[in-house]
């Protein structure tokens, strides 16, 4: 446990009647980082946010904020603020009053409130919009008001519940940059909830990948992308080709009838495994130069690359992202480097996974 932890979950469980939403969650949030809870709807990511904010109570376990247990502290006494999915801006107040709400509750001096609101509106580039009604604001502007309204209270942690999901693609990408930049400038801890893996990869320091009430894997975006712990994570984050294989020995794995050099170790000899190869790691080449041979079945132009689907002799499907065209029906070779092969064990927990990685990476 580092002294830098701001939020800790200790064996937190949440259930409604017989419906288990969260199973035994342990997590630690450090000060000043950008965290993302990533998973499909219904995986419990919003519940974690609600537990931090205080909108729901944990069935079991303890939640600490700044080292103090907060299980029984109501939301209005917690030093966290939320940006809601639908923004939840007060329709009967203008922009200024919305942002000033929290400060008025604290009975701050009027001039101080004016100053602070002006400052935070400037930060989200909404200076001059003070007198506007909420209905006169566009989706992106409402989003900024919601962020300003939360930030003006100078929270220890800012919670963001899928705040970008209502925006169109262009605006969403812009806001991703802005949020990331804002977080780095302010140094406030952000916990961001999303089901969009690209958003998560682009913005986060740490991602928690969730599935059915559990955290399946946590790590930096690069770690999770490069070393998915299992098929679920590999599938959920990015596109992947997943085939069955056998770990012959350390740094040697066999799949589709060949044995390849790889960078994974720490498994039993001849252990059955799954192997992930990312489509963008596969390089189109001649049959002779390729490590694998596939027959091209379909090809789609995706703008930045061609998406090529081919089948090997065993009938496994291979997806390749290539900037070069292939000919449908022709046989092509696929080349990849040893470090492009990601080996996953069946049923390995995150702790076991981390321990194994450490054991051979230190050598």
């Amino acid at each position: 446990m580092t002294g830098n932890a701001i939020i800790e979950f200790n064996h937190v469980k949440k259930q409604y009647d017989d419906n288990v939403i969260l199973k035994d969650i342990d997590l630690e949030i450090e000060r000043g980082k950008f965290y993302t809870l990533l998973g499909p709807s219904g995986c419990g990511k919003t519940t974690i946010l609600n537990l931090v904010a205080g909108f729901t109570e944990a069935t079991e376990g303890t939640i600490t904020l700044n080292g103090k247990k907060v299980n029984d502290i109501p939301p209005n006494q917690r030093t966290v603020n939320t940006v809601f999915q639908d923004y939840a801006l007060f329709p009967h107040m203008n922009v200024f009053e919305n942002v000033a709400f929290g400060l008025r509750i604290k009975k701050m001096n009027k001039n101080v409130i004016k100053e602070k609101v002006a400052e935070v509106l400037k930060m989200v580039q909404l200076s001059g919009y003070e007198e506007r009604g909420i209905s006169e604001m566009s989706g992106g502007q409402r989003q900024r008001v919601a962020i300003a309204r939360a930030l003006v209270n100078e929270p220890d942690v800012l919670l963001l519940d899928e705040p970008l999901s209502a925006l169109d693609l262009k605006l969403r990408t812009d806001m991703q940059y802005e949020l990331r930049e804002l977080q780095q400038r302010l140094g406030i801890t952000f916990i961001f909830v999303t089901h969009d893996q690209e958003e998560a990869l682009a913005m986060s320091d740490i991602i928690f990948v969730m599935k059915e009430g559990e955290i399946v894997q946590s790590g930096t975006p690069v770690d999770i992308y490069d070393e998915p712990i299992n098929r679920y994570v590999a599938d959920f984050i990015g596109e992947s080709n997943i085939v069955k294989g056998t770990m012959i020995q350390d740094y040697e794995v066999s799949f589709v009838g060949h044995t390849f050099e790889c960078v994974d170790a720490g498994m039993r000899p001849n252990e059955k495994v799954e192997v992930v190869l990312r489509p963008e790691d596969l390089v189109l080449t001649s049959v002779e130069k390729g490590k694998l041979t596939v027959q091209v079945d379909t090809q789609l132009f995706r703008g930045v690359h061609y998406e090529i689907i081919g089948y090997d002799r065993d009938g496994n499907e291979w997806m390749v992202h290539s900037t070069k065209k292939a000919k449908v029906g022709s046989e092509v070779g696929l080349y990849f480097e040893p470090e492009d092969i990601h080996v996953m064990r069946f049923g390995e927990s995150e702790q076991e996974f981390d321990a194994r990685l450490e054991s051979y990476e230190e050598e």
Partner: protein
Amino acid sequence: MKQNKALYFVPYTFWLILFVIAPILLIIYQSFFNIHDDFTLENYQTYFQSGTYLKMTLNSFWYAFLITLFTLLISYPTAYLLTKTKHKQLWLLLIILPTWINLLLKAYAFIGIFSMNGTANQFLSFMGIAPQQILFTDASFLFVATYIEIPFMILPIYNALEELNPSLISASYDLGANSWQTFRRVVFPLSLTGVKSGVQAVFIPSLSLFMLTRLIGGNRVITLGTAIEQHFLVTENWGMGSTIGVFLIIAMVLTMLLTGEKKKKGAIR
């Protein structure tokens, strides 16, 4: 194709002309005739000069105001608590159910309850208080009128509260407000539309109640409605009745304007 669409409209247009526009014009027209069928401003003169009519109008407003106030005071908490119950739909139906009982029957029930030997007096004597004249007093009129109007106030307020986005309340707590502050700054202001339509639904009918003033108020309370009924059906002075009617219509329009939905810029869609 155009003609076809216009055909739908024929009966409705007939209705608009015959039963909406014509009656209003006729009541205004009639107000310029005295009891001898002369075209004159006499009725308006009487209204402003006799004093009794002005006093009656003020009285009528005062009672309608009291009825609306009492109804609001009882209905707001009821509507608010209703939104917090389980089986909301069932509770709501139970609120609506009494409005399906004919108004006359409910008034009739109170004749029994408030009579000299009625339940209310039995309860008073049980408490050691001598039987009182309850029926035919202002208080009994106010009580019964309030009783009858309660559901019409609860419904719009309940609807306004139900429409409230729950994440607004979460947001308020999140920003540090406690339950009372959340109610005062978020819930109440946003339920005002419901309160306004409730006031509309109660105040205007309260100005014109005539059946209750007779059955429960014992003719002690004369509202605008009672006066109109009196002039039309008893003294047959339709001109004076229409004149009072014109003032009632003016009062109605004013109430609508005061409580009407102002097209606010901040209203969310």
